[in-house]
């Protein structure tokens, strides 16, 4: 029977019930994958200043040109210089390469690789006698490694990794920082290079540079590289590595610089994006209060990953969710549900949907902390992706909530709001809404108020829409709609009403009063 299928489906959508406990998280992954796609596009957006060269350099001729011939000629020149035995020429060659590779548009990464320059660059990394040479080579290699996987692979296969790890300890801060950067690019390529770096003991070497007197720019690079070492799944980074990095990351989460905070939060978001055991590791650090605090930061770059982390955490077990609630997340969420950025609204709604999939006390906390009203607002006014999350919240809520709790939601306008969304094009969402409606009817049944609810639904225009859905092109949708109609809106419906639970207030599903305040 369609109703039973619906129930199974509903059950499986519970956070912690149903056959596949990871279903929730899968859904999250599928829907959030666009947020997480690593963009390996070459466009340069962030710019920072460094006055490394104290002397103002004359503009080299190629400032003006993307001319292929000029580039080839320049590369020829570089090859000659770099292959010479003269240190000045070697440095000059590296510098010219660095300038080519650090120009704003269309740096010739491929040409540099194909010119066979990488082996010399890697060689120069170990020239402790010539820091300038080391620096220029390091910068050049960093930029090559910033390209596609192929580019990064070239850099790694020329043996850059051990050299860079050694350079982390360089007494020259700029060289050490450049090494941090290069290693960040390599780690960011994917799980295999990440793990290769970890196997080379990159983590202790990095953490050794995390000192209180480190300049902010250096810290930013360090945090970013660390976050890349926490990043990527299939597989996740080893627990031991995570344990090594966590204390420092926690420390960085208390820094004042917004870029450092942002990258540290992203690290946490990667680390919480996994099975419950991973989430446990993070919660055990006691970082939750700080994360909740960061939710109210004024910088979007910090709020976004903090919210993502929290969202990940509340998609875990009930205990883990409770930890987040205890840390005050419900106080912060309403404001985030009203954030000017739709993305933030969406992630906030997603977090609420996961909390609403929890046990009744947690649902009760949603009510007491005033999350129902902003949720209904999102259902009414937000962009579709956010509405979709909010709909899930309602379904989870009505599925796991007590009758009284369901009544609360209807009183807040939740029923009306989801009925209005029955006209959306996305079939999946429609199904979720029909689910929720079913849940609400189940609660009505327990109160013996089915007839009143039917009237209410009709009044709100819901009956018309459900009837229309019987003609929907999607099988599941029209069957679900049909089932709903047959069960509650047909002639025989009245007989099926069971009054299994008496409540104090009779006739709770009253007809609408003037201002649509449902006496429900």
């Amino acid at each position: 029977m369609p109703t039973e299928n619906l129930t199974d489906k509903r059950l499986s959508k519970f956070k912690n019930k149903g056959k596949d406990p990871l279903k929730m998280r899968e859904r999250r992954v599928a829907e959030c994958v666009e947020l997480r796609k690593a963009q390996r596009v070459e466009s340069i957006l962030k710019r920072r200043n460094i006055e490394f060269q104290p002397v103002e350099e004359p503009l080299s001729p190629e400032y003006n040109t993307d001319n292929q011939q000029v580039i080839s000629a320049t590369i020829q020149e570089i090859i000659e210089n770099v292959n010479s035995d003269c240190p000045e020429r070697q440095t000059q060659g590296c510098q010219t390469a660095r300038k080519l590779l650090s120009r704003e548009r269309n740096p010739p990464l491929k040409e540099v690789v194909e010119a066979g320059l990488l082996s010399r660059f890697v060689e120069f990394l170990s020239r402790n006698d010539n820091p300038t040479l080391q620096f220029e080579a390091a910068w050049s290699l960093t930029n090559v490694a910033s390209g596609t996987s192929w580019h990064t692979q070239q850099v790694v296969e020329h043996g850059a990794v051990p050299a860079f790890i050694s350079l982390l300890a360089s007494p020259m801060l700029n060289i050490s920082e450049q090494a941090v950067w290069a290693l960040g690019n390599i780690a960011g390529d994917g799980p295999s290079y990440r793990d290769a770096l970890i196997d080379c003991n990159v983590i202790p070497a990095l953490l050794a540079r995390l000192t209180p007197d480190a300049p902010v720019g250096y810290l930013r690079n360090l945090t970013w590289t660390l976050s890349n070492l926490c990043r990527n799944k299939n597989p996740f980074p080893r627990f031991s590595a995570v344990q090594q990095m966590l204390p420092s990351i926690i420390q960085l989460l208390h820094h004042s610089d917004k870029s450092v905070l942002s990258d540290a939060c992203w690290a946490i978001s990667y680390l919480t994006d996994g099975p419950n055991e991973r989430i446990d590791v993070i919660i055990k650090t006691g970082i939750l209060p700080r994360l909740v605090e960061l939710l109210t930061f004024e910088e979007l770059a910090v709020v976004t990953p903090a919210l993502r982390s929290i969202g990940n955490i509340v998609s875990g077990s009930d205990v883990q969710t409770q930890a987040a609630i205890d840390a005050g997340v419900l106080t912060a969420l309403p404001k985030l549900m009203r954030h000017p950025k739709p993305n933030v609204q969406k992630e906030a709604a997603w977090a609420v949907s996961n909390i609403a999939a929890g046990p009744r006390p947690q649902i009760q906390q949603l009510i007491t902390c005033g999350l129902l009203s902003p949720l209904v607002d999102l259902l009414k006014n937000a962009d579709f992706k956010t509405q979709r999350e909010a709909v899930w919240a309602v379904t989870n809520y009505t599925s796991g909530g007590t009758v009284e709790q369901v009544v609360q939601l209807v009183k807040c306008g939740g029923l009306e709001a989801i009925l209005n969304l029955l006209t959306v094009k996305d079939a999946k969402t429609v199904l979720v809404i029909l689910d929720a409606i079913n849940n609400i009817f189940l609660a009505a049944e327990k109160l013996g108020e089915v007839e009143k609810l039917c009237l209410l639904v009709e009044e709100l225009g819901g009956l018309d829409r459900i009837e229309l859905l019987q003609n929907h092109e999607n099988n599941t949708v029209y069957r679900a709609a049909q089932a709903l109609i047959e069960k509650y809106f047909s002639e025989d419906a009245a007989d099926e009403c069971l009054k299994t639970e008496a409540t104090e207030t009779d006739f709770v599903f009253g007809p609408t009063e003037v201002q649509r305040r449902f006496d429900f």
Partner: protein
Amino acid sequence: MFVTDIRKEFYDVVVNQRVALLVSADIDALCACKILQALFHCDHVQYTLVPVTGWQDLGTAFLEHKEQIKLLIKQDDDLGVPSYDDIFRDDEDEDEDGDGGDSGNESDGGSEPSGKRRRIERQRAKREWEARRREILFDYEQYEYHGTSASMVMFELAWVMTKDTKDMLWWSIIGLTDQWVHDKITHMKYVTDIATLQRHVSRHNHRNEDEENSLSIDCMRISFEYDLRLALYQHWSLYESICNSCYTSCSFKLWSINGQKKLQEFLADMGLPLKQVRQKFNSMDLSIKENLREVIEESSNKFGMKDIRVQTFSVHFGFKNRFLASDVVHAAAALLESVEKDEGATDNFIKALDCLSRSNIEKLHLGIDLAKKKLKAIQQTIASCICTNLILSQGPFLYCHLLEGTPDVKLFSKPLALTLLCKYLLKAFVCSTRNKRCKVLPLIMAAPMDVEKGTVIVLGIPPESETSDKKNFFGRAFEKAAESTSSRTLHDHFDTSSK
């Protein structure tokens, strides 16, 4: 802002607002102003008229009126505007240290950081951008030159809204002629624009063809003319006009005795008795007036003046009112820069604006009289400068300083008058000098501006040339000179050739 659709992006926007009209002190601007005033009157737009003579005035007016919503600025357009991105760059957050390249990060920080980052050299990229910018701005700013006349632009606006009238057409003709009289546009441009206006004139004249009383007192008829380049000749005597028009004066070199002789020959060649020629033009014998233009043209050719006639327009209204466009330009300019006692700049502005209306013929005649005085003063000054060698060659340029006490020097404390003087003087000098090198030099003139304050007005014009593109580079040059001599200067005029 730069506007491409003048109706949608400009008029439709201001028509519902309160407008402040800031008008600069040249005749083209005044004409554009008249057209806009007429349009505003039609559409009941409230506006405030504010004459501005320079950047300072503009600044003051702006501050005073800044609660008003829209501002219009009357100036000739400049062409060849560089693109926004080449000149302006939004400042991004710059961290204190570390060049950074971030691949794929949204600038608002709301998205996941990229997996890899390239390090670009911000300083270098910035320097490269700045070098390009400097080049572009130098090209753009080094020359000051003029585009299409503002009054023609306004007339087009009116035409696009099918609200154009003959009066507006006449004003745009005057605006264009002002550009030509004061040597702001090339001859090519002038001729091209004349052709454009000629089409409008034909259109307007066809409208009236079916009307019975085409010569009624209220009617206004604009005609295309290929008329003599003799300033104000129909409101003066032919003789005076020949003596006081730059073209003829320079061609004959009328400051010299030889020149005077040549003039006599010229008149004799045409068979024009001196007595006639010295009379008021309207009193000349009809028989002489009949083919005057052709006769003069023929003789002028013999005397080396190939361009004695020029394309222009005239207006006829009432029974005896006939004016050439250049007449009105001279009259209005003279009124605008009148140095008669007890007349402030605003009074002059209003008078000049008024004389452009058909209902203010007396003002126009007053202007003509003033213009005659001005032209005479110019010729006399030129004669004296040349005869007393007041023009000095200072290496890369020619230089002439009018001292206090020079007759009529007060007239030349004003930019338009000084401009005319300067241009005529250079032409005269080029005609009179035998020094080949000097013929291609620019000329700088200085005249006392405010005797009490001891200030001087300085003007520079490019060398005399037939193929001149009328680009004036003195703006920059003056700024640099002021810098290097630490002089107190006021670079106030919209036209950067004068300070």
